[in-house]
Every structure is written in structure tokens, then in C-alpha cells.
């Protein structure tokens, strides 16, 4: 329980140290203010983003419900979907897409005639077809599994001695009243075809970041829409509902929530939260390095205090301060016109995510304090690490992609090993696009996992370097 005394002491120190507190709160708040005033004008009106498209999709032959083969080009559908997007509560198109040749594309990008270039590969339709097949297969196997269990239960309860496979199988697959098997009962084979869409542009160009953010959301919606549609259509085959005559894939274009008045500042604000949280690592490192430098840590080591008491007692006040910091930053952002979308839940989830990112910053502070002897060193090294990190985690603009593998079907970038990358992305989804917690579940999971990992690394090094006696 001594960690409580350490935590109370830490809180008193944080809130009584006026200079430190000013750095912790005022610096990011001023940064937010300056950024807000400079960029809140932004695009202002609902002007479409000009984008270039190179659509090389060759299409794919798909069998419809009655077995007829027809060629489908999902690349064209995607382009149509993008063209149909409008700003919220407005008829104005969000994108002005035009087909461009690859030889002209670079020139258009350099001249900023287009904000980005979307390249759709030749196998895009094939990969979407595989996505559909995969979802069909999953739905069928799931449904058949349910039927088998139900039928077995039925046989068991009736006490029937002679097992009749027809009565077990027929009459279920293809509708409850049908006693005939459907014509084609084979499951679609799924091949591992992956298509890679490329978005090219200048990361230093504000409109690139804005249009890219929206476009990535649209592409994900497109993918999810296809998969959902496939599952729904397949499920319908197992029920008595009316025959579905729609095409296998249908994408509904929806406006992206909150985009009606997005400004440059709106895109940057979540990143500034992350920047502020990373700055708190300097405070933690300086505070701990001061304990080392002034000998108070040695004095504590002489007492009955354990490593856990010190580390947990340090974690609590700094986590509280980071939550307070986020709330203040949020307040400043709203005051200067930050367009916060979503309800109160988005705010609460954002605070939760920020608090976890704050814990990650405390862990980073522990790590920095492990290798610095005094406040000055900690402050310098902390700045040297935290400031570049805020760029690396994409707080201000995305860095070039550096994929290092696939996890849960998603490409894992080099920057994804840092918890703040996921926090930044999750905050954007929650605050800019009005997403819910389910939309950031993966980012949230990575954030927690990586924060715990980083905290243990920080604890390990700090304990090894600072909490063992100088023997």
C-alpha cells in the first residue's frame, strides 16, 4: 500500500511545480491554439478533392444465383462509388475523380492538380471475388453446421432406430419445405488472391492527407460492404424469405460523418493530443531523473519501499495528469473550433484511449530515466526521443509505408510497433469520422498490448539501472 503514499507525493509534486505544470499543460495547449488558429480556416467550403485514378482492373466472371456467368468489374464500381460520395448534408461531391495515364500522373501530383493518385490493379476484381467466395463459404459452413446439430438433436429426441441420411439432409438445405437438394451444393473454392491498391501523393501536402484519410475509409467500407453483402445473400438462401434478385455485390454510397465542415485543423487535432501525450514522457523522465540526481531515490531505497511501490506510485499521478492534459487539450480544441463528431461516447472512448497512450508515455519516461543521470539529461534525451516519435507515429502526417508483416489479415507497418500509432489512428476514427469503439477494436487491442509490453520493458530497465543498489 506504500504506492499510495508515493502516488500522493507525486501528485503534490506535479501540481505544485508550477514550471513543470506549465510545460505539461500550457505548452501543448498553446501548440494546439496556434495550430488551431493557423489551420482552422482550412478548405471552408465543400470543394471536391481532385484525384487521379489509374484503373487497370480486368474484371472477373461471376456466376449469378441462376447459374448464368457474367463479367463484373469491381474497379469500375469502386470508382463510381468514389464519384458518388458527397459531403454530409450537401449535394457537393467529395471527390472529382478522373482517369489519368501513368505517364502524366506524376506531373499532375507534382503540380498539385490532383491531391492523390489511386492505382487499381488488374486483379482487383479477382481478389474481391475471392473475398465474396470466402464469405459465402464461411456462411454456408456455419449454417450447415447449425442444421446438422439441430437434426441430430431431433433424431436423438425421437428415438428413431434407422438413420435415414435423406431425412437428415434433405428438407433443410435450400428451404425448410423443400425435400430436394439444391442443384449446386458444392462450396466455392477460395484462392489466395490479393490485390494491392496504391494511393500515391505528397505526405507534406495537407490536402493529400485529408483526401487520403477519407479515401482509405471509403476503400474499407467498400471491402466491408462486399463481404457483408455476400454473407447476407448466402444467408438468405437458407430461409423462406423472398427470392433475392439483387446483384451479388452492391455498394451503398454514404457520406462520411463529420466531413461537412472538416478543416485542416480537424485532421491535425488528434495528432496534437498524441504529441502532448508524448511530451509527458519528458516530464516523467525528468521527475524520475531528479529523484536519482537529488538522492531522494536512494533515500527511498533505504526504506521499506519496494520497486512496485515506486513504479506503480509513479504511474498513477502521471496517468491522472495525462487524462487532465487531454481534457484541457480537448477543451482548447473545441474552443477554437475543432469539429468533434460522434456523441459523448466518442469523447469518453477518446479519453480512455488517451489515458492508455499516457501510460505508454509513462513507460517511455521510465525507459528514458533508466539511462539518464539528471533532470537536464532526461529533458534533453526525452525531447530527442519524443519529438521525432510524434512524427514517426503519424501524429502530423503519415510516413511512407514500411510493411513488416500481416497480423489479423491487416498489413503491419514498422510504425505499428509503437502504441501511439494505434492511439492516433483510433482517435482519428473516433473524433473525426465519428466511429464507435467497435471500429477501433483492433487499434485498441494493439494499443493495450503494446502499452503493457512497453511498460514491462520500462520497469525492467528502470529496476535494473536505478532500483538495485550500487554494489
Amino acid at each position, binding site marked *: 500500500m506504500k504506492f499510495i503514499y508515493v502516488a500522493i507525493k507525486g501528485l503534490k509534486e506535479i501540481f505544485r511545480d508550477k514550471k513543470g505544470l506549465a510545460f505539461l499543460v500550457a505548452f501543448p495547449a498553446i501548440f494546439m491554439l496556434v495550430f488551431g488558429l493557423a489551420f482552422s480556416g482550412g478548405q471552408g467550403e465543400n470543394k471536391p478533392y481532385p484525384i487521379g485514378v489509374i484503373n487497370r482492373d480486368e474484371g472477373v466472371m461471376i456466376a449469378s444465383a441462376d447459374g448464368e456467368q457474367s463479367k463484373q468489374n469491381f474497379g469500375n464500381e469502386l470508382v463510381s462509388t468514389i464519384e458518388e460520395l458527397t459531403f454530409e448534408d450537401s449535394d457537393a461531391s467529395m471527390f472529382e475523380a478522373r482517369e489519368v495515364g501513368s505517364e502524366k500522373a506524376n506531373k499532375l501530383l507534382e503540380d498539385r492538380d490532383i491531391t492523390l493518385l489511386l492505382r487499381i490493379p488488374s486483379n482487383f476484381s479477382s481478389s474481391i471475388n475471392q473475398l465474396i467466395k470466402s464469405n459465402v463459404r464461411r456462411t454456408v459452413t456455419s449454417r450447415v453446421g447449425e442444421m446438422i446439430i439441430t437434426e441430430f438433436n431431433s433424431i436423438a429426441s425421437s428415438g428413431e432406430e434407422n438413420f435415414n441420411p435423406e431425412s437428415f439432409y434433405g428438407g433443410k438445405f435450400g428451404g425448410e419445405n423443400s425435400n430436394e437438394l439444391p442443384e449446386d451444393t458444392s462450396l466455392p473454392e477460395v484462392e489466395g488472391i490479393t490485390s494491392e491498391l496504391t494511393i500515391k501523393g505528397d505526405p507534406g501536402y495537407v490536402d493529400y492527407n485529408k483526401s487520403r484519410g477519407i479515401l482509405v475509409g471509403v476503400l474499407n467500407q467498400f471491402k466491408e460492404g462486399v463481404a457483408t453483402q455476400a454473407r447476407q445473400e448466402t444467408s438468405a438462401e437458407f430461409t423462406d424469405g423472398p427470392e433475392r434478385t439483387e446483384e451479388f455485390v452492391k455498394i451503398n454510397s454514404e457520406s462520411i460523418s463529420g466531413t461537412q465542415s472538416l478543416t485542416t485543423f480537424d485532421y491535425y487535432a488528434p495528432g496534437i493530443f498524441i504529441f502532448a501525450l508524448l511530451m509527458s514522457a519528458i516530464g516523467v523522465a525528468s521527475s524520475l531523473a531528479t529523484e536519482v540526481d537529488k538522492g531522494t531515490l536512494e533515500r527511498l531505497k533505504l*526504506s521499506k519501499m519496494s520497486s512496485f511501490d515506486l513504479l506503480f506510485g509513479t504511474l498513477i499521478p502521471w496517468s491522472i495528469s495525462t487524462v487532465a492534459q487531454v481534457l484541457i487539450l480537448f477543451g482548447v480544441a473545441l474552443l477554437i473550433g475543432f469539429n468533434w463528431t460522434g456523441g459523448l461516447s466518442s469523447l469518453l472512448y477518446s479519453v480512455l484511449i488517451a489515458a492508455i497512450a499516457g501510460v505508454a508515455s509513462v513507460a517511455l519516461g521510465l525507459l528514458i530515466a533508466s539511462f539518464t543521470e539528471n533532470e537536464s539529461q532526461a529533458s534533453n534525451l526525452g525531447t530527442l526521443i519524443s519529438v521525432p516519435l510524434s512524427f514517426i507515429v503519424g501524429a502530423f502526417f503519415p510516413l511512407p509505408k514500411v510493411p513488416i508483416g500481416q497480423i489479423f489479415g491487416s498489413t503491419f507497418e514498422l510504425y505499428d510497433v509503437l502504441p501511439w500509432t494505434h492511439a492516433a489512428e483510433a482517435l482519428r476514427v473516433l473524433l473525426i469520422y465519428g466511429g464507435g469503439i467497435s471500429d477501433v477494436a483492433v487499434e485498441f487491442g494493439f494499443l493495450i498490448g503494446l502499452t503493457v509490453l512497453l511498460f514491462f520493458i520500462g520497469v525492467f530497465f528502470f529496476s535494473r539501472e536505478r532500483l538495485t543498489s550500487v554494489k
Partner: protein
Amino acid sequence: MTDDNYVVKTEDLRKAFGDFVAVKDLNLEVREGEIFGFLGPNGAGKTTSIRMMVGLLSPTSGKVNFGDMGDSLPEEKVGVCPQDLVLWEELTSYENLRFMGNMYGVPKRKLNKRAERVLKDLGLTDKRDNLASELSGGMQRRLNLGMSIIHHPEIVVLDEPSAGLDPQSRYSVWEYIKGLVEEETRCIILTTHLMEEADRVSDRVGIIDNGNLKVVDTPENLKKSVGKGDSIKIELEDKRKNPEAVEMLQSLDGVIRTSETSNRVVVRALDAVGNTNVFREKLTEAGMTVIDMSISQTNTLEDVFIHLTGRGLE
């Protein structure tokens, strides 16, 4: 020298940092109810010795025993007052004391009373709610001391407890230290480079130099050990002539020994007052200009140190 009534006993305690041996085979006993003073110049090995004695530093060889408490000392049994001011500047005097008490697991009710008592004894009651950063240097030094005894330790280790204090604060700290061992602690070990502090506060003094414990005894016995005669300190205008003066004065009648200490020529001689003029004349004849000459008829611990090492404490 052995005594069964010891609280701390070191046997061949040695600490080496690479090739440098900071403490060489320290054999020592600190007895029940005594204040033991380590006297020596800066870098003599005092702090290293006490850090090993309370388990803050592992010895390279040798061992420490704590009498009825065994080979290891529980944290709550020892209180260490570091040489530097080690305070949480953003906490008040009272909060600093309470925080350390909590870290030592002192029960809340007992701790509140204890903190008030320590503040009173150290003359800090008026500064109870002042931040440590707002206290004067002397007050901070006293609070530093208070934080080391807040948990009522049996062994108190004070590293240069009165460093940087004005004379008035220094005397009050000395009185407080003497009161501690009379009322509540089993023994106090202090390090100092101030001969007056060692002399006035310590029951026994160990003189340490270059990691070697030269001698251990009461201040009175140590001063007697210097021998007969008075001490005359002579300062020459040209310090380069000190060795020549040491050699010349050594050959005079009545001179017991001579040495050069802290840029001065130190002469121990019988009838020092009567010989002063003789010494001055001889030095002048040899072309040396005397700019100061002082006589001490009472031996000090510095004389003991000079006697043992041939050097001064400064």
C-alpha cells in the same frame, strides 16, 4: 580491541573500485550507547565505510555484524542522514517527515506525533507547513536529519551532519545528536572532517586516511597521545622554503618534531613561548620572512591527525 557489547562490528572490510582501494581491511566496533566519529579529510574513505556498514554498498571482502540483529540490518532499524540535502522540495517540512515515516511503515497515529516531536526538537515547528524549498540552508539541513530518524531507528548514521551550517545551528544540531543517543537510539555513527565536531560530539573517534583506519580511541586519549610540548604554526612568505625551514628547525634544542602541513611549518616543541623569538631569528637569518606565527598549548584532533599522517586535515 573487542567488546561483546557492540552494535556494529566490521571484520576486514574492504572496498575496491577497480585498482583503487577506497577502504582497506577495516576492523571496528561501535558500542551500545555511543557516538562513534569517523574523522578524516575528504576522500579518506569515511562515507564508503559507513555505506558498507549499513548495507548500502557491498564490500569487496570482509563482513559486517550487527550483534543481536545478525548479519543483515532490517531497513527500519537504521536511519541514514546523507551528506547532501535529500528532500522533496515541493513537499512541506511536515509532509517530508510523514512521507518518509510512511515509507518505513510507521503507524499513522504514531507517525503524526513523531513528526510533530521531531519538528519541535529540531526547531522547525514554525516551518511545519513551509515547502522544503522555502527553508533556509540550516533549516533544510535539520529537516534532512529529522527525516533520517523519523522511524525511530536503533542505529543512526550521519554523514557530515553539520556541513554548511552556521555556528549557532551547528551547536544545536550537536546537542540534538547527543540527545538522540541518550534517549532513543542504540548508537550513532557519524563522519566528519571537522575536528571540533568529532571532538565535541563523539564518544570515540576513528581517524581514517587513504582508506586506512589509523587509530580508534576517545578524543581525550587521542589528544594525549600526541605527547608533550606545544604546537607552533609558522607561515612563511615564500612557501617554497617550507621544506628548508622544517629541516633547519628540527635541529634546534627543545624541538620535538617538525612537519609541513597545509602550507605551514608546524613545530612541536617544549617551552614554545620562550622559543618563538629564537625560531623567528633563525628563519630570518636564513633569508626567510615569517608572516604569521601561532602557538597552541592545547592539543587538538588535528594535531593527532598531523601526528599520525604528517599532514593536516584540510
